[in-house]
C-alpha cells in the first residue's frame, strides 16, 4: 500500500508551479504537473474515498441492469424527479459517467504509481543491501555487548572477521540478502559489519495486488463486453432454445454478436418442489427446487437428462443455465359459444407472496366475437379471510382456485406495439365482471368450466403446471477474473504480512579491550516483531560464536562481498 508520496514532497519546486511564478509552463509542463498530481498518494486516497461515496446512490435507487422493472416503477411513482435523476444516470449508476470517471482516474493513478515502483523494485532486488549506518545506537532494537571470550574456552579469541562471518552465514540461512562492509579504521579499532535485508516479497506482493486489480478491471470489462445473459420462463413440458427469439428478455454485452449464441435446447420435463411439512414454525417453506430437464445440442440427435437446481447451474454450450424462479401456470382453455376451442395455453402467473398467490393475465386475441382479456389470481391452496377475500394459505397445490375478471374490446396487440404480457392495458377494454360491474368474477377449480359474460363463450381450468424461470449466462472472461482475484488476494496477504526489515551486526575490534558486537534493525513498514528479531539474532549469534569450530573460519576474510567505504 505504500506509495512514494515523497516523490512529490521531495521536489517542492516542481510541486507548486503556479501561473504566477512560472507563466511559461507550457502544455508539457502542465501535463507533467497533472500527472504528478494524479499519481500522488493523496489523490489516490481522495479518489478511493470518492469511489466509496459514489457507490452509495446505486444502492438507493433501482438499477436498470439489475432491476429494469423497478426503474419503470420508480418512473411511475416519481414522474417529476425520475427524469432529472435519469439525466445524471442515477439508474445506471455503475456505468455512469461520474462513477466511471472516478474509477478510471483511480486506475490511471494506480498505473502511474505501480509502473515506476515495479521498475524501482526490480532494480532493488538486484542491488545489495545498503551500507551499515555509522551509529547503530540510533536504530531500533539496538543491542551492544562486549565479548569477553579470551579464547580459553575455544582455543582462539573471536576476531571481528570471525564474528562477521558467523553473522553473515546466520543471516543468509534465514533468507536475508547480506553484504559485508568495512567501517572506519583507526589505530585503536577495526570495524567490520554485515548489513542484511529481507522481505522483498512485501513490495512484490503489493505490486502484484495492484496489478491484479488492474487485471480484474480489464477482464471484467472484456467479460461484460462479450458476454450476455437472458431470461426465459419455461412451463413444464415446454422447451427453450438458446436463440434470441426464445428469450423473454436478453441483456447483451457491448460487443455481443448473435454468433456467440451456441445452439442448444433445454426442455423442462418437471420442476419438483419440496416443502417443509414437519417443522410447524416453517410449514410450507420450500426446501428444494429440482428442475429435471432434457438438454440437447444441435449436433446430437438425442438429448440427455440432467437437473438444474438453485446453486447448481447446468453448464452447456459455454453457458451456465440457472434456476432462478418458479411459479404456477394454470392451463386455461377458452371456447366460443359453439364449444369450439379458440384458446388453450399454460399461462404463467407471477407469484406475489410466499404462499404463491399468483397474479396473471390471459389475452385471447383471436376466435371470439371480441378480443377478451382476463386478469386474476391463482391460489394454490385457497383460503378465505374473514372479510371474504381469498388468499393462499400454502404454496403447494392443495386446493387450487383460479379467479378471473373478464374484459372485452381491443387488447392493443394489433398495432404492432410491444405490450407487457403481465399487465392488461384496459384503456380500450370494457370490464365485464368484478365489483364495479355487478357481475360475479369467474372462479374455477381444476376440471371446471364457466360461461363468459355477454355470451362470449366459456372458460375452463384444465390443470396446473409449474414453470421455472431460467437465466442463461455467458461470460467468456470469468476464469480470468477469478485468476486475477486469487493473485490479488495472494498479493495482499504477502504485502501485509511479510515483514520487510534490515538487520545489522557490527563487530568492533578494539586494540585494547574486548570485541564489541552491536546489533540493530530497521522496519520498513509495519513490523511488530522487529525488536524480538534483533534480540534473537544476538542470542543465536553469541551461541554460534561460542560453538564455533575455531579452524573453520579462522582468519578467513569474506573478501567477495566486502565493500570498502570511505
Amino acid at each position, binding site marked *: 500500500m505504500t506509495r512514494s508520496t515523497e516523490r512529490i514532497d521531495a521536489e517542492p519546486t516542481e510541486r507548486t508551479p503556479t501561473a504566477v511564478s512560472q507563466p511559461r509552463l507550457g502544455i508539457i509542463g502542465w501535463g507533467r504537473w497533472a500527472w504528478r498530481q494524479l499519481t500522488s498518494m*493523496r489523490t489516490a486516497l481522495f479518489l478511493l474515498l470518492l469511489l466509496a461515496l459514489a457507490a452509495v446512490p446505486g444502492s438507493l435507487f433501482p438499477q436498470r441492469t439489475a432491476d429494469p422493472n423497478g426503474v419503470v416503477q420508480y418512473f411511475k411513482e416519481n414522474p417529476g424527479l425520475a427524469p432529472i435523476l435519469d439525466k445524471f444516470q442515477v439508474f445506471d449508476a455503475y456505468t455512469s459517467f461520474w462513477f466511471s470517471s472516478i474509477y478510471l482516474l483511480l486506475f490511471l493513478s494506480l498505473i502511474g504509481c505501480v509502473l515506476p515502483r515495479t521498475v524501482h523494485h526490480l532494480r532493488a532486488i538486484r542491488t545489495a543491501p545498503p551500507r551499515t549506518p555509522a551509529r547503530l545506537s540510533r536504530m531500533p532494537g*539496538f543491542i551492544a555487548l562486549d*565479548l569477553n571470550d579470551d579464547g580459553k574456552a575455544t582455543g582462539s579469541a573471536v576476531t571481528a572477521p570471525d564474528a562477521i562471518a558467523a553473522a553473515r552465514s546466520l543471516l543468509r540461512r534465514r533468507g536475508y540478502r547480506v553484504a559485508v562492509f568495512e567501517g572506519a579504521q583507526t589505530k585503536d579499532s577495526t570495524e567490520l559489519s554485515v548489513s542484511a535485508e529481507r522481505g522483498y516479497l512485501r513490495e512484490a506482493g503489493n505490486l502484484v495486488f495492484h496489478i491484479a486489480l488492474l487485471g480484474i478491471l480489464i477482464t471484467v470489462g472484456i467479460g461484460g463486453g462479450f458476454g450476455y445473459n437472458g431470461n426465459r420462463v419455461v412451463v413444464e413440458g415446454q422447451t427453450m432454445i438458446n436463440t434470441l427469439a426464445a428469450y423473454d428478455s436478453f441483456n447483451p454485452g457491448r460487443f455481443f454478436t448473435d454468433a456467440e449464441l451456441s445452439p442448444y435446447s433445454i426442455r423442462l420435463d418437471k420442476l419438483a418442489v419440496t416443502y417443509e411439512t414437519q417443522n410447524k414454525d416453517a410449514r410450507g417453506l420450500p426446501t428444494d427446487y429440482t428442475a429435471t430437464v432434457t438438454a440437447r445440442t444441435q449436433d446430437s440427435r438425442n438429448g440427455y437428462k440432467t437437473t438444474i437446481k438453485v446453486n447448481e447451474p447446468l453448464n452447456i454450450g459455454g453457458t451456465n443455465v*440457472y434456476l*432462478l424462479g418458479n411459479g404456477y401456470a394454470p392451463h386455461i382453455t377458452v371456447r366460443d359459444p359453439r364449444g369450439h376451442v379458440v384458446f388453450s395455453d399454460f399461462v404463467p402467473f407471477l407469484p406475489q407472496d410466499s404462499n404463491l398467490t399468483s397474479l396473471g393475465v390471459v389475452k385471447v386475441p383471436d376466435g371470439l366475437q371480441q378480443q377478451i382479456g382476463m386478469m386474476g389470481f391463482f391460489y394454490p391452496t385457497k383460503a378465505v379471510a374473514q372479510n371474504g377475500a381469498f388468499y393462499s394459505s400454502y404454496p403447494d397445490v392443495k386446493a387450487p382456485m383460479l379467479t378471473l375478471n373478464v374484459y372485452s374490446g381491443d387488447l392493443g396487440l394489433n398495432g404492432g406495439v410491444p405490450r407487457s404480457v403481465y399487465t392488461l392495458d384496459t384503456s380500450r377494454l370494457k370490464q365485464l365482471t368484478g365489483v364495479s360491474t355487478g357481475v360475479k368474477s369467474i372462479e374455477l377449480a381444476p376440471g371446471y368450466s364457466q360461461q363468459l359474460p355477454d355470451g362470449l363463450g366459456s372458460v375452463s381450468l384444465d390443470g396446473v403446471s409449474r414453470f421455472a424461470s431460467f437465466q442463461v449466462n455467458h461470460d467468456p472472461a470469468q476464469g480470468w477474473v477469478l485468476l486475477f482475484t486469487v493473485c490479488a488476494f495472494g498479493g495482499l496477504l504477502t504485502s501485509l504480512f511479510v515483514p520487510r526489515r534490515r538487520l545489522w551486526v557490527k563487530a568492533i575490534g578494539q586494540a585494547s579491550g574486548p570485541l564489541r558486537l552491536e546489533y540493530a534493525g530497521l522496519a520498513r513498514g509495519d513490523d511488530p516483531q522487529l525488536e524480538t528479531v534483533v534480540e534473537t539474532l*544476538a542470542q543465536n549469534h553469541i551461541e554460534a560464536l561460542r560453538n564455533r569450530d575455531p579452524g573453520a573460519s579462522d582468519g578467513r576474510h569474506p573478501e567477495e562481498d566486502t565493500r570498502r567505504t570511505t
Partner: protein
Amino acid sequence: MTDTLSQLSLLLIIGAIAIYAAAFVTFALDLARRRSPSVTVISAVARHAEAETPTSTTRLANAIGNTGVLVRQSTTSADAHEERPQTSGVLRAAFVLTLVGFGLHLGADVLRGIAAGRVPWANMWEFSMTGTLIIVGVFLLVTLKYDLRFLGTFVIGLVLLLLGIASARYYVPVAPLPPALQSYWLVIHVIVAIIATGFFALGFALSGVQLLKARRERQETDARPPQFAFLRTLPKWAALENLAYRMNIVGFILWTFTLIAGAIWAEKAWGRYWGWDTKEVWTFIIWVLYAGYIHARATRGWRGSRSAWLALIGFSAVMFNFGIVNVFFKGLHSYSGL
C-alpha cells in the same frame, strides 16, 4: 427435540445477556476507578518506555552468560507479556464475567446449530447471535496477545446493544434452509464476514480510544485541563494506532476474502459474480473505505487522527450494512428470514 434445544438456546442467550450486562457494568466501573490516582493500573501496552534502559534480566543476558557483557539494550516498545501488568480486581472480575457470558453465548449458539441441523447463521437472528459471539471471541483471542481489556466496556456494550435489538426484533424459530442458501459457501462466506466484523469492531474501538487519547495528549501539552481521566492509564495514541491498524488489516484481509467468496457463490447461485446488488454494493463500499484507511496510513499528513476517522467511518458502514441494508433495502440478500 428441536424445540427443546432451541428453547434451551434462547434461555442460554438470556443468561448470557444478563452476565454480559454485569460484565459491562464492571468494566465501566473499572474505567471509572481509573480516575482516582490512588489506584495504579498499568496496562501492559501502556508500559511504553522510551528510555534506553540497561536491563540485566532479559533472556538475552541469560543466553550470553559469561561469554560477554551486555553493554546496552534499547527498548522502544514493550513486549506485552514480558512483565505481568498490575491489574485491578474490578477489571479481573469484569473479565471473568465476560468469559462466563461467552461460555453461555457459545452454548446457545451451538445448541441453535444442533437444533437447526446446520450452521447457526442463516437468518438475521442467528447472524446476530453468531456475530456477537464472534465479536466477543475475537476480543478474548486478541487479549491473549495484547492486553485490550480496557476496551471491555466498548466491546461488551456493543454486543449487548446488538443482542438486545436482535432478541427483541429478529428472533425467529428454527427453520430449514431455503434452497438459495443450501451451499457450503454459506458456511465459508458468512463466517469469514462475521470474523472480519469482529476484528473491525476492535479496530474501531482502538481507533476511537486513539482519537480520545490523542486529544488528551494535546490537552496535556497545551496545559489545558485534560478530559476523561481514565485515558491517563491507557497506552499512548501511537501505540493504540499501531494496534488499531493491526486489527483493521486482519479485518480487511478477511473482508477481501468475504468479497471473493461472495462473488464465487453469487456466480453459482445467481448467475453472475457481481451484479451491484445492494449488499454487494455495501460490501464493496466497506472494502474501499478500509483500503482508503490503509492508504491513508501511508500518506503524509493522514497517518494518525485522520486515518483513525476513516476506520470509524468504515466500521459505521459495516454496522449499516448489517443492521440497515439487511433489513430495509431491497435486494437479493433479503431472505434473512425476518
